[in-house]
């Protein structure tokens, strides 16, 4: 009996391997992008391209811009309370992007933040990850990042009147909740070296945990904590941490044409005011 189950286990493994290898093959793309001009100093090497937007682009699903994200990150992305549809700043950006690129936007269900970069790297499932994702060198080793489209900073959130500060939290008996794979986690690992860092799937779990006393603090992106604290009224931001980080959109390294088209579309959105319109819708003013 046991040999059968072992064999079945192995067969299962082989099947899984095959399926993954197949899906990995689907991600490749040959289209080339002409480098023209760089719009921002932090831009990746691929400049913006030309008119081939609609016709020349290879996407996972033809004619569609397939997007993935972690949909528990308001106001950048969340799910509509009644319909469950994705909504938020990044969702509006993705719609506008697709419009500028002559594509239709297609949102996949939410997934954990730390799986976004591997998913885009492996290809075949989604074209872009647009998830309030900071452009970092580590991420650029795995995937291409678009030109920055939002400036962000970090924040330290604690329970109201808890008296905690960045220095009091850097202690062995303090637990800091972060969202796994975020720059908030990096900041906590680097600056709160004595504390225990707990990486969680969503920022909501982290904030709930601080509210109930499970964790002492949360480190997360400042725009997110500012937005969340409208509902979490018993929490406060004790420290706004200037990091000057910038969000970018993750695109597979195998698809430089798509990256170029996205950078072009982002620049167009800045020029024609659609970016400012989305910013004022979600943040009350253009950023």
């Amino acid at each position, binding site marked *: *009996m046991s040999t059968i189950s072992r064999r079945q286990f192995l067969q299962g493994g082989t099947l899984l391997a095959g399926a993954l*290898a197949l899906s990995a093959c689907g991600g490749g793309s040959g289209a080339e992008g002409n480098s023209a001009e760089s719009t921002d*100093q932090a831009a990746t090497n691929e400049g913006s391209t030309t008119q081939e937007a609609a016709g020349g682009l290879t996407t996972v699903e033809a004619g569609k811009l397939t997007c993935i994200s972690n949909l528990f990150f308001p106001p950048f992305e969340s799910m509509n309370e009644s319909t469950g549809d994705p909504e938020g700043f990044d969702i509006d950006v993705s719609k506008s992007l697709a419009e500028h690129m002559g594509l239709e936007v297609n949102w996949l269900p939410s997934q954990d933040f730390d799986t976004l*970069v*591997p998913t885009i790297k492996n290809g075949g499932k989604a074209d872009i990850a647009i998830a309030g994702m900071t452009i970092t060198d580590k991420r650029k080793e795995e995937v291409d990042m678009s030109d920055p489209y939002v400036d962000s900073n970090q924040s330290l959130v604690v329970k109201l009147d808890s008296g905690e500060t960045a220095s009091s939290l850097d202690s062995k008996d303090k637990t800091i909740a972060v969202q796994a794979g975020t720059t908030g986690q990096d900041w906590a690992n680097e600056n709160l070296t004595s504390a225990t860092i707990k990486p*969680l799937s969503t920022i909501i779990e982290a904030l709930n945990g601080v509210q109930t006393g*499970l964790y002492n603090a949360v480190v997360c992106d*400042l725009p997110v904590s500012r937005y969340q604290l409208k509902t979490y009224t018993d929490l406060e931001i004790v420290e706004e941490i*200037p990091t000057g980080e910038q969000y970018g959109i993750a695109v597979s390294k195998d698809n430089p044409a798509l990256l170029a088209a996205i950078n072009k579309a982002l620049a167009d959105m800045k020029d024609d005011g659609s970016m400012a319109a989305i910013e004022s819708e979600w943040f009350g003013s253009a950023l």
Partner: protein
Amino acid sequence: MGHTDRRRQRGLLVTLCAVVCAFVMLAPSTAWGLTTSKATARPNEEGGSSVIGGLPTRLTWEGTVDDGEEVTAVTLRLPEGGSFDGASTKVTVLQGLTRSELATEVAPEGPQLKVTFVDPATQGLLLRLEVEGMKFPAKGGDVVVEGTYVNQDGEKPLAASKPIATIANTPLQSLLASLDANPVVKAWNSSQFLGMFFKPQLLVTAFATLVPGWFLCLVIVLVAYPIAILLGLVFALMKISRHRVLRAIAIVYINILRGTPLFLQIYIMFFGLPMMNINIDNNVLGVIVIAINASAYLAEIFRAGIESIPPGQYEAAASLGMGHMMTMLNIILPQTVRRVMPTVTSDFITSYKDTSLLSSVGVMELMMFAKNLTSVSGNMTPYVAAAIFYLIVTLPLIKVVTTVEKRMAKSERGGGARPKVKAKDVAAAEAEQDDIALGGVVDAQ
């Protein structure tokens, strides 16, 4: 900040330093033109939280330009053995929380890194240098980043940073470095599938770092399960009890716990109890949740087991003058234990695997460690390593269940299929026939 940092001297100098610092703070004329706000390093120990010397990491240095100053260049200097060679530097200039764009030129050279500002950085600006790929001295120890800056009056020293604790290379890290350099490993990792799920470096790291999480899983389930068995037995007996109230309580308990996901039960317990000011240690709470959840399933298993004992056994016990309690303890339960053993083992396997759900509320168990490692490496290998850790426990148990089930089936067949065996193989060994005959007598009761 720079002044307070000076207090970090050790030994007898502490008091003296404090006095000096206080003096320095009182004398505005000696204020720094560029105040060092902080210097930190990203932990570069795979699966750990230490900063290892001699291996590439990222140094983040921040300084604020003081009132009336114009800074045109900053030079950072590492102690001997440290190196900025080959590092890439990102300079971020911030006014409060807003980025300001300043053109810069960066020149790394050995232990020195010079950042020149084309237009001078003016007062109030926060200069943030992120140096990716720099190396601290290989021997480890507390590293202080020093340096100089250039303002309108010329070159001046920077206040020393708070010391950054670094360690020398560990054997594990050396092994990883040798794997990194191995051409076979390189070829293996170049396959997208193998590199993503079975990266040797990460397998080694994961095996070394996941162990505490694995132990916690085992401890949680091993402590929780005996509690669950007792609770389950109590509720099973309540459910078959003659008293309506006891039955009702058991039914509600079992149905609610079996009818809701464990994930939800974990959330309610972990987020709900603290709100009622009931604060229990996370690991203890984990044990409680797993025990309560398993007890509901065990109650059903035990009830089914008890009810599967033929009524003849009760009648036989009654005919011997045994009471209900005595019948249960001496006749029914011992037989039940044998029957439910495989199912209980399967349920134990389920509970063991269910401890993984506790990672969602920050219990540092196996999944949590794997998730942590995956989130820093962007690779799925730690999950594969975690799977292996789960399988180390579950595979032998599955084998046990299978063997026990086989034996039970055989022993039942031994009684039931006797005539067939006889008809098929009349020339069976005599000893065996005796056995069968004996079995037949017992079974015929």
